[in-house]
């Protein structure tokens, strides 16, 4: 990505200097979103249970 002259060189430089912080924020958010997605993907279990109760 840093090799692309089409991206802003200053922003690329700031990202390089703060990479760990920015990347950690990204990784934490995506890990949380993955948990939400996995819970969502298991919806059919919840659906079946709900219909039994109904």
């Amino acid at each position: 990505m840093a090799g692309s002259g089409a991206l802003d060189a200053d922003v690329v430089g700031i990202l390089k200097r703060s990479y760990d912080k920015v990347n950690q924020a990204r990784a934490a958010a995506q890990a949380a979103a993955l948990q939400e997605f996995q819970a969502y993907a298991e919806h059919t279990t919840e659906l079946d249970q709900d219909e039994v109760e109904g």
Partner: protein
Amino acid sequence: MLASQHYQLSELLLGLAHAMDLVSPALTNHHKRVGYMGYMLASELGLPDRERSMIAAAGLLHDSGALSLRERLDVLQFEVGPNGRGGNDHAYMGYVLLRPFGILSDVAHMVRHHHLWWERAGDCCSRKDLLTAANLLHVADRVDVLVDRGQEILGQVPGIRERIKAQAGRMFSPDLVEAFDALSHRESFWLDTTSSYLPTLVRGSLDGWSHRLNGDEFLALSKLLSTVIDFRSRFTATHSAGVAASAEALAGECGFGPAECRMMRLAGYLHDLGKLAVPAEILEKPAKLSPEEFAVIRSHTYHTFRVLQTISGLDTVNSWASFHHERLDGKGYPFHHGDDVLSLGARIMAMADVLTAVTEDRPYRAGMQP
């Protein structure tokens, strides 16, 4: 900035419905029509203003749980099973997506049961008080799929009326069928659904529930919308969350203040809104995309821009969110903006999108280790 701003819920819902309806010509305006027809049926029944508008909102969102184009097209068939099976999965998934946002709780329950047959409604334990509204949505949805969009509409009305009447007491509540029968004799009802005035009419139908979102609510709803966008494919399931977080963090490193950083997170949640116009089958294709498929993918930022343009108070957020595939040398897309147009916020978003994308798996490659 974001904290003091207010946003119209109706504008956001209309924008989302519009984006979802872009996925196929067969679905153009489907959510808007169902919202409007639901509102008109509720009016015919004499329901209170607020409930009518909530039904219109549920119509705008009713298929938000149908992840793939195949699922969306499948439910265009008139009957999907007595207990809603076949249509029930996407209805339930829509409910699961929408229910975390408290303001949409009733709407989520209507979405959940919008394929439930009336004769089975008594077996259903969840929110019996909303079953009439859900069944009303069912009538509106099924009426819309009976219309042949390639033919003049008024000539089709007697046939549609008979199909709906035949389901009184089965798919639909007899009271609702009676209300539909009365409504169906008004030419204006049908002409409204096919006219270019439809978006204006739908906007008006939401007036009875004119909720203004504060900055926190708008941010929370935008996060919810990002799941509607991203959960359509496991390859994109966490993308907007990653872009939002990395863009916010990078904005802080670039000297943005706390309020602007929150705006950047908001822009990250919304930056791929236009991907709702891209069939999930393309997002998940495990082989090289054809030129036509690639063109569909590339259109997503155009749709993000045009949809966000319809929401008041989002000009800056839009310029950050929608230009993430533009490049300083003008070789990006779709507007080919260059460094004279692209703000620092847009440049940060482009960087955050690249950073997030390279770490994610795609159907044709594994993600890179950060």
